[in-house]
């Protein structure tokens, strides 16, 4: 018995050591899947650029190539180092959020961007990854009893609320809600009791009027136009209506590559970023849209597989957090373009044009692969 344990440990070590063994461990099928998703993005952006790679698609491919290399580098680093770096990353992330609040570029009425020369960074995107890391680290060693202790839950709640508040203040209602949901999912996966969620959700509903009072005009407009988009067909409701027209007119098989009238005649707003999925669905129809949705679902499924396979709580929580993060992007974006939830500037990472979301998503997948490669790494035991 002890010998098997020892052998296992030895195996673990062997698996964890040596760059070539690690490379062997990288889930290349998953990397291929990511390439397929980015390839879908290339096709969509090629069309969005008016049938030319110049506007968006070329940059997209270049950026993705860079991100893949970065992702693999991240993946090769021992998972335990990330666990140790989590507090530092958290402080750094909060610092960036504060910085963007003070010196950020104003885009669409909100301060969200930091200009880093060639790259514009949206710290809120990065912060979500960091939050996942941080919470995973926090819950990593907590025994089931400890998680049941409300006092133990106060610090991570604060850890979630600080970035949520900062992002809300930017103001970016959508991302702050997504961040909060992501934190909630982490708590849930860590084993926090159902009734505690009930209390928080109840509190949130009670606080909703207060939040609504603090919303910016355009944010309120989004909610009201969501409830009744036809009320203002040329104003705030325009995006939703045109997106639904584009989607609906695609039908089963779509209008064909580069043949989407709504997209190519500019009826569809922001077709290269937030509404890229609409563009795809218009040109490739329900079949194409469901195929893309399926590909994206596979990515999420892989995250969950990693989570279930990991032998350490940090890796499990990290994987489930990253998976949920990517899932939230997909869900919010597609629900938004189908007119199911209010429009918020949420891109479809790896498909939408835009470096920030791709960069942070690929950092996340780097961590995920690291968790897979180091799935059997030894951490200390749980504390009680």
């Amino acid at each position, binding site marked *: 018995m002890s010998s098997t344990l020892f052998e296992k440990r030895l195996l673990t070590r062997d698996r964890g050591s040596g760059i070539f063994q690690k490379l062997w461990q990288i889930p290349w099928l998953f990397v291929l899947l990511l390439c397929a998703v980015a390839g879908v993005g290339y096709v969509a952006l090629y069309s969005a650029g008016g049938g030319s790679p110049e506007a968006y698609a070329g940059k997209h491919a270049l950026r993705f190539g860079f991100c893949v290399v970065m992702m693999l580098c991240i993946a090769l680093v021992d998972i335990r180092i990330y666990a140790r770096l989590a507090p530092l990353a958290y402080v750094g992330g909060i610092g960036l959020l504060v910085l963007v609040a003070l010196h950020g570029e104003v885009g669409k009425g909100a301060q969200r961007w930091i200009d880093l020369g060639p790259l514009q960074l949206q710290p809120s995107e990065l912060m979500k990854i960091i939050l996942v890391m941080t919470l995973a680290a926090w819950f*990593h060693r907590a025994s089931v009893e400890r998680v049941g202790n409300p006092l133990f839950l106060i610090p991570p709640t604060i850890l979630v609320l600080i970035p949520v508040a900062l992002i809300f203040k930017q103001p970016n209602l959508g991302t702050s809600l997504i961040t909060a949901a992501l934190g909630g999912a982490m708590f849930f996966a860590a084993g926090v009791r159902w009734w505690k969620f009930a209390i928080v959700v109840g509190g949130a509903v009670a606080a909703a009027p207060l939040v609504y009072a603090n919303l910016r005009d355009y944010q309120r407009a989004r909610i009201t136009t969501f409830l009744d988009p036809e009320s203002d067909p040329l104003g705030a409701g325009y995006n939703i209506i045109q997106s639904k027209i584009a989607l*609906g007119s695609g039908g089963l098989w779509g209008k064909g590559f580069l043949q989407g*009238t709504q997209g190519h005649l500019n009826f569809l707003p922001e077709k290269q970023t937030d509404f890229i999925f609409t563009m795809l669905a218009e040109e490739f129809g329900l079949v194409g849209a469901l195929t893309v949705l399926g590909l994206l679902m596979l990515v999420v499924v892989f995250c969950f597989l990693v989570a279930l396979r990991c032998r350490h709580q940090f890796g499990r929580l990290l994987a489930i957090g990253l998976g949920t993060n990517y899932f939230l992007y997909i869900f919010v974006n597609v629900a938004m373009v189908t007119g199911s939830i209010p429009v918020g500037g949420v891109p479809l990472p790896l498909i939408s044009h835009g470096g920030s979301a791709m960069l942070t998503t690929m950092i996340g997948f780097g961590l995920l692969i690291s968790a897979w490669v180091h799935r059997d790494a030894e951490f200390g035991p749980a504390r009680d």
Partner: protein
Amino acid sequence: MKWPRWRRPKKGIENFTMRGVKREEERRRSVFTRRALLLAGGQLGLFGFLGYRLWHLQMEQGERYATLAEENRLSARLLSPPRGRVLDRTGRVVAGNRLNWRALLVAEQTQDVGATLETFHRIVPLTDIERARVERDVRRRRRFVPVIVREFLTWEEMARIEVNAPDLPGILIDVGTTRLYPEGEHLAHIVGYVAPPAERDMDGDPLLQLPGIRVGRAGIERHHDQVLRGRAGAVQLEVNAVGRVIRELDRREGVPGQDVEISVDTELQKQIRGRIEEGTSVVVLNARNGEVLAMASQPSFDPNIFNSGVSAAQWRQWTSQRATPLINKTTNGLYAPGSTFKMVVALAALEARVTTPFERINCPGHFDLGDTRFHCWNRNGHGGVDCRTALKVSCDVYFYEMAKRLGINRIAAMSRRFGLGVDLDIELPGTRRGLVPTREWREAQGRPWALGDTVVHGIGQGFYQLTPLSLAVMTARLATGRAVQPHLTRSIGGRPVRGSRPEDWPAMGINDRDLRLVRESMWAVVNEPGGTALASRLPGGFGQMAGKTGTTQVRRVSREQRERGFRVDTLPREWRPHALFVAYAPHDNPLYAVSVIVEHGTSGSGAAAPLARDVMTDVFNRFRQSPPGPRVAEGRVG
């Protein structure tokens, strides 16, 4: 805040706590697995929801959205066909289309609209009003929609703009068409003019919705508007979200407007207009088929002004004048016919057998009816006059007597047969019918008809209101015995219209002997000693003219004036009588009928007859080589 410490456990201790660690680890793992599966299930469910949404939008409502998408991208636009031209009888273009070179400004092609306009102003000066209009249009329209800066550019202006093109970003030159009337005011009353359609012009033709379209507002332009206008073409365009045209999907060319050929001879018209003064109108008809050869009303106006819009000042100037340049007096001026009406009375009397050609009526210079005395123009009297003499010397007493014998209604009936007081189907909208009174007409006004009224109407005075055109028609009918109608249209789109041959017009059914007598009397008026227009004989070589003078008072001459030795030439001009003359020629083979009215011309023989002679001379000179005989249906193509 307490952070977990990460360190690799020492081997020995690890073995010692292994069991507890393992148990704890398994608990955590089972909790996590449960929760992970719940999360996965939830997310899968949400994926399902997205799939359902897509199915709902793309399959269930797909057709509806497909329609909406098509509505988004398709835009139909009308193409305006070129307007047909109006040609005169020699094929000369009297209403055509001119290329209109315009400078347009496309706002999106310049950084600074103000600067571009300023540069433009230095090259082609713009008024402040123009500049304000351009800036307003730029603000109102999408930035890629061209805005007209200046229309009707000359070659020189265009050259200056082209040379300076690099300094004029956003300015482009474009060519449209505009209506051009090369003969200007000479034919304005006949050809008419065009103007942008008003609300009441909207007859359902989609063409009228086009910006820049013009509809005929007067004259031939209005009468033949449908023919000249053509039919709109259409082009189906694909447009993008801001309305910019991406490409043309389908094009259906319109039908160009057809050319209309009119019977007027521009050279003759110009010669006649050169002879006449303000307040004079002249009509020349082809007596055999009713074609209008010339129709002059002085003063006139320049129809080209209507193209670019009539200014308020111009409009006031036109409408405030006593001479009313916008009104065609030949069709809308109303006059008493005076003695030119006497042929009608004579024919009515002969037809009604209330007299014979040989009956003589004694003219003592006046005619007494009860207490009322009606004077002859010749106060000394004409002595005994028969019908021929009465017409030749224009004896009033003879016609007082005839009118008394006939009664007003028989005179009116004969008048109508000669085209007086009835609608003449001339292609000039707004032509007045005029008025030939009857007993019933007067009684409808609540007044009794007095015998004295009838007497006065025997010499063409009284309630008569007739147009110069109708007097010309009367003359043509006298000359030919056919009920010719005046008309202007010779052919439409190269196809001749009916009515150009004399046989197209029915005989009037008037006794030929009576008609010959009246014609001979009219010949005598001009060619026999004692005739009232003897001084106005045609020069040799043209055949002889037959005619009748007329002088109509515009104010009553009182008895005192008469007794004091009244002389018209001492009156202020606007109180002097109108001078009239109607004539046809040649007498032996009538080809042309002329009516002349000189407002306040004092006397028919003094002012109107010589003018008619000159006009007739012009006509003969003009048509000596090729008399405008009946047009054979030769069918011009194209």
